[in-house]
């Protein structure tokens, strides 16, 4: 079992052929609402959400917005109710699917297995593709291509965030110090690759490792839509707050590679495991904000950044340092062992025969493809950008990632059958399994949902089932109750009696 983790992805909408000005809020909503998933719940309980709360113990007065953000039309969306526009949907697999900031967002349930995480994430890609088809078949105006990436290539970014459950007793500063160099350098393995350069400090780079590096302006902070920090301090645990933090990692890319999705969550989880257990990685960077861009903008992997002690280190050096510490500790379980093996193999490949890492790493796969077509420097800019965009399209007929998979050039980690199953079944062993179970068996009684509670209505009375633990005894007990109860009344009675010793 790995550290509990979920991934939330805001998908892009590449829109063409519209006769009228595009209303992105409306289009995102229409894409989400195109989902035809049996047993889904429409709604979401926002009452306990507060994105202004900061891990440093404060509450922000406001969150920054990008003043240069696209001011899109609201001609259609302004006529929609908030519920229609947000289109909140809880899927039977426990995932949340909705319109977030004019992008369809798919949030997986918490997973404790890397393969389950990949399958859940891929189930999201497949869902978005079906929604794209449904939207384009029914809409009167324009064509929308859904894209799993993080940039519009016009200076605006949308996010792919990982969420890790970490104990609150782990001191905040230790978490920051231990993670910052890792989050700065990990793009060398888990970056999705990007053509060009944009954002507040654009350069003349033809190709870089990360979709997101251009957009980071601060080391630590609470903002996510402007002045983006490498370490985000949002404090919404969606779990028992006294015990847990939800580490909200925004310094990551939308990956298509199954290996990279697993590696990203596995590596980060193992670094967190070590920090929780008191391990010191003894790595630091004098200026991570500069380093994250320098590293990204040099696909030759020779760019260095200075440590506080004055040493120049490459991204590979930083990742090597973290890996050596973890290797010396050993790995518990099959998946953690897999992470260390892949981490080692890929670092070695990047040092010796980088092209060979293109069967697993997104950025290297893109690079290899462009090299085969004439070289990154030999292709015109428009073709490079189209190649980049096409890699991330969720339509398998138009996706270069899917083309590479079909031609045997990208490795898979999970089967199509596992992905199909993940579209309907929640990950095992976490509260997501309980949420899915409740939807499946007692969906008609559900009146509200959020990550850590489900509200049920029976005979005119409301019952809130709290799920502040992500996994463990309480979750197991709830799972047994909702599995065995013959009806809703029996389940509620069982919970009220404390589970009769279950």
């Amino acid at each position: 079992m790995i550290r509990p983790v979920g991934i939330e992805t805001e998908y892009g909408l590449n829109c063409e052929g519209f006769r009228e000005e595009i209303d992105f809020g409306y289009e995102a909503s229409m894409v989400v609402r195109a989902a035809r998933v049996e047993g889904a719940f429409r709604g979401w309980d926002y009452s306990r959400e507060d994105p202004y709360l900061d891990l440093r113990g404060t509450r922000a007065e406001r969150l920054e917005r990008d003043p240069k953000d696209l001011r899109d039309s609201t001609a259609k969306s302004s006529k929609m109710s908030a519920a229609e526009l947000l289109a909140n949907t809880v899927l039977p697999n426990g995932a949340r699917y909705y319109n977030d900031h004019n992008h369809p967002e798919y949030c997986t349930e918490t997973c404790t297995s890397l393969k389950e995480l990949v399958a859940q994430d891929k189930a999201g890609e497949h869902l978005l593709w079906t929604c794209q088809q449904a939207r384009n078949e029914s809409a009167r105006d324009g064509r929308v291509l859904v894209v799993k990436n993080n940039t519009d290539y016009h200076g605006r970014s949308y996010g792919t965030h990982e969420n890790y459950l970490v104990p609150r007793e782990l001191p905040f500063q230790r978490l920051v110090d231990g993670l910052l160099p890792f989050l700065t350098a990990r793009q060398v393995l888990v970056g999705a690759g990007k053509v060009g350069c944009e954002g507040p400090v654009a350069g003349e780079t033809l190709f870089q490792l990360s979709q997101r590096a251009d957009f980071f302006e601060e080391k630590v902070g609470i903002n996510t839509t402007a002045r983006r920090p490498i370490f985000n301090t949002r404090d919404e645990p969606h779990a028992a707050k006294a015990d847990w933090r939800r580490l909200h990692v925004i310094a990551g890319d939308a990956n298509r590679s199954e290996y990279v999705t697993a590696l990203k969550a596995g590596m980060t989880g193992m670094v967190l495991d070590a920090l929780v257990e008191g391990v010191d990685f003894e790595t630091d960077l004098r200026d991570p904000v500069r380093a994250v861009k320098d590293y990204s903008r040099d696909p030759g992997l020779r760019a260095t950044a200075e440590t506080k002690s004055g040493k120049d280190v490459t991204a590979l050096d930083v990742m090597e340092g973290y890996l050596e510490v973890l290797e010396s500790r050993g790995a518990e379980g099959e998946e953690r062992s897999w992470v260390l093996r892949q981490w080692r193999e890929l670092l070695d490949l990047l040092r010796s025969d980088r092209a060979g890492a293109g069967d697993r790493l997104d950025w290297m796969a893109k690079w290899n493809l462009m090299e085969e077509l004439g070289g990154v420097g030999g292709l015109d800019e428009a073709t490079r950008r189209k190649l980049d965009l096409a890699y991330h399209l969720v339509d398998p007929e138009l996706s270069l990632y899917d083309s590479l998979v079909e031609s045997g050039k990208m490795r898979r980690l999970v089967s199509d059958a596992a992905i199909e199953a993940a579209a309907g079944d929640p990950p095992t062993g976490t509260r997501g399994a309980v949420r899915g179970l409740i939807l499946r068996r007692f969906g008609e009684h559900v009146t509200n949902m959020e990550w850590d509670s489900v509200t049920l209505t029976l005979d005119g009375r409301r019952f809130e089932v709290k799920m502040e633990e992500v996994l463990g005894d309480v979750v197991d007990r709830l799972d047994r109750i909702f599995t065995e109860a013959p009806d809703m009344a029996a389940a509620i009675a069982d919970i009220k009696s404390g589970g009769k010793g279950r």
Partner: protein
Amino acid sequence: MIIKHGGMWPVLETDAPAKPTVSPTKPKQKEDDELDERVKRIIREIPDPTPQPGGE
């Protein structure tokens, strides 16, 4: 591409795009030709990236 830290933002030398080590050349296979054709078709069929709102 070599990035040097100047006084301000990194100076980009313009020698050439950084190039990963080239793998030994393999004979082109049928799958490669099919992939090439597919890539060309996709590039013809898809539009340029279009502006979108930022997110998160």
